[in-house]
């Protein structure tokens, strides 16, 4: 499903080059829920960005469903991200000026032309599954933090991606909401057989996944 071959990421800074990820090899089979854990600055978010087609590796390859994503042209990569990868970010990533339903339907409308009615239908269905049916016309600011995070997950799923990537998805949530979000992830992973990779520094959360990958100083730790 996912394989990284010797991926390396070097950032150029005013004080010289910083090697954030150092030649990581990683394979995640289809349907696995994996957690990447490590301390702040260990390179886990950089690795996730390279896996998700958000940041080009300095060296190495990333294959998702046998596609070498970094060999794709810019437009092809944008379309691949749109159709095959879903993202749940650490920050509040809803567009505040769009309604909840528009936020969820947006990825379906951005990519290669899809029927608008169908896109909105799927968005409404996902929101209903996530217990947000009564909030479809609300704006993000009118929702609680937990509800907003559920909307973000619904948005990540609207194109039925093969891979769902979550970067510290519960870092700003209370324990109860955190539990609720984790349950959502497990349900999605189980019911849709979706591959899920979550970056976290919370070992208790990581323990709830199928596999834990430790990273330290840009390398896989034993």
């Amino acid at each position, binding site marked *: 499903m996912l394989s990284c071959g010797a991926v390396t990421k070097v950032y150029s800074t005013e004080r010289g080059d910083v090697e954030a990820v150092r030649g990581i090899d990683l394979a995640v089979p289809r349907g696995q829920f994996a957690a990447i854990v490590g301390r702040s600055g260990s390179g886990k*978010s*950089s690795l996730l*960005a390279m896996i*998700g087609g*958000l*940041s*080009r590796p300095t060296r190495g390859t990333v294959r998702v469903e046998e596609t070498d994503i970094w060999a794709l042209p*810019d*437009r092809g990569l*944008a*379309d691949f*991200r*749109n*159709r095959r990868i879903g*993202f749940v*970010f650490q*920050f509040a*990533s809803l*567009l505040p*000026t*769009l309604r909840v339903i*528009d936020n969820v339907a*947006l*990825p379906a*409308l*951005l*990519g*290669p*032309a*899809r029927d*608008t009615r169908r*896109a909105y239908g799927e968005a409404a269905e996902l929101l209903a599954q996530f217990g947000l049916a009564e909030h479809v016309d609300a704006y993000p600011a009118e929702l609680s933090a937990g509800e907003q995070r559920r909307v973000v997950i619904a*948005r990540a799923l609207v*194109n039925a991606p093969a891979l769902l990537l979550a970067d510290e998805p519960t870092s700003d949530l209370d324990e109860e909401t955190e539990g609720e979000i984790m349950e959502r992830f497990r349900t999605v992973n189980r019911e849709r057989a979706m591959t899920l990779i979550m970056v976290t520094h919370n070992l208790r959360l990581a323990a709830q996944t199928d596999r834990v990958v430790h990273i330290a100083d840009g390398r896989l730790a034993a």
Partner: protein
Amino acid sequence: MSDGPRIRFLLGSLALQNLGRRKARTLLLLAAVAVCSGAIFTGAVLMHSIETSMAVGFTRLGADMLVIPAGTLTNITAALLTAEPTDLTLDASELPRLERLKGVRRAAPQLIFRTDASGYGRGGELIDLIAFDPDRDITVQPWLEQHLGRPLREGDVIVGGRRDEPLGTELLLFGRPLTVYGKLGKTAVGTHERGLFISFATLDELRDVMRQVCGMKAPLEPNKLSGVLLELAPGATTQQVRFAALANFPGIKIVSGESMLTSIRQGLAALLNGVLGLMVIMFVSTALMVSVLFSAIITERRRELGLLKAIGARRGQIIGVLLTEAVLATAFGGLMGCVLGVLLMRVYEHSLVYYLDRMGIPFVWLNTATTGLIALACIVLASLIGVAGALYPAWQASRREPYDLIRSEG
């Protein structure tokens, strides 16, 4: 593949709502573009109006040169409209030869006779009676502001701009009734404004009675002219015609208005070029300002743009969102500028028209259709300012990697 209407609507509303989120900044942007496009709109309308007015004014000013008897004193401004009333005369038999001079397109004879014995007006008013040839005329009929709905004929008189006789009424001159055929506009030339204009045929009718009243004076002899106004053929120069006339007609004097008109035209052209230069500078500086502003807007919204890219927005869509935002703001600013320009011109209309009128230039406002086209062009120009200003920052943002945009948020 092209975007569907719904995504265009969503991205468009993102752009619109982003403008609404920062009201003070948006208002400042609108004000800056409104000032720029308002200045360009007002400048363009005034430039066109002044150009039209000057063109009309120069056309109506009439002659390029005046041929008069040597020894006649002349007022250069008046000389381009009428000869001076003196006892010195030219022989009318010279007219066909003058007309045949190389470089002359038209020669308009005039005879001007100043008298206080016409019986016209109150208590021996001094009047200038100017005879002209309606078929050759270049300086009287172009100034006709009102006239009867028929051609000028024998027994008609045209009154100067400062006379009050209504059209169609009778006016007694040397005891003979003449019909007021028309009235001239104001020329700021006294002789012209107070004069009474008749055809040579009418003068011939009056000649006997004028002699009886005024005595035998040179201008009242048959076939005499006070001067001949010349219009030059295209490409002909005053020097060329001056030398030819002086060589062929001893005892004449040539008055040319070209230097005056040329200096006015050149002055106007320099002014208009200066205004155009200022407009270009305003355009460039506003585009730079919009560019700086949009660089700041993009810096502020990197996370949003990164998020859009992460969920699949293509580079063209990112550029489109930012350009839509810029075009919406600057086009509305352009519209505001045009409205402000119209209001400003309304405020200064009276003083502007008054000053130009005092200079003898009839101010002609552009028609509504042309003004509307200029307004439309200004709005399009304002939108182009938005595109020009936002294009580079938008292009730069679209090139950046989504993760770079997301994590560089402050």
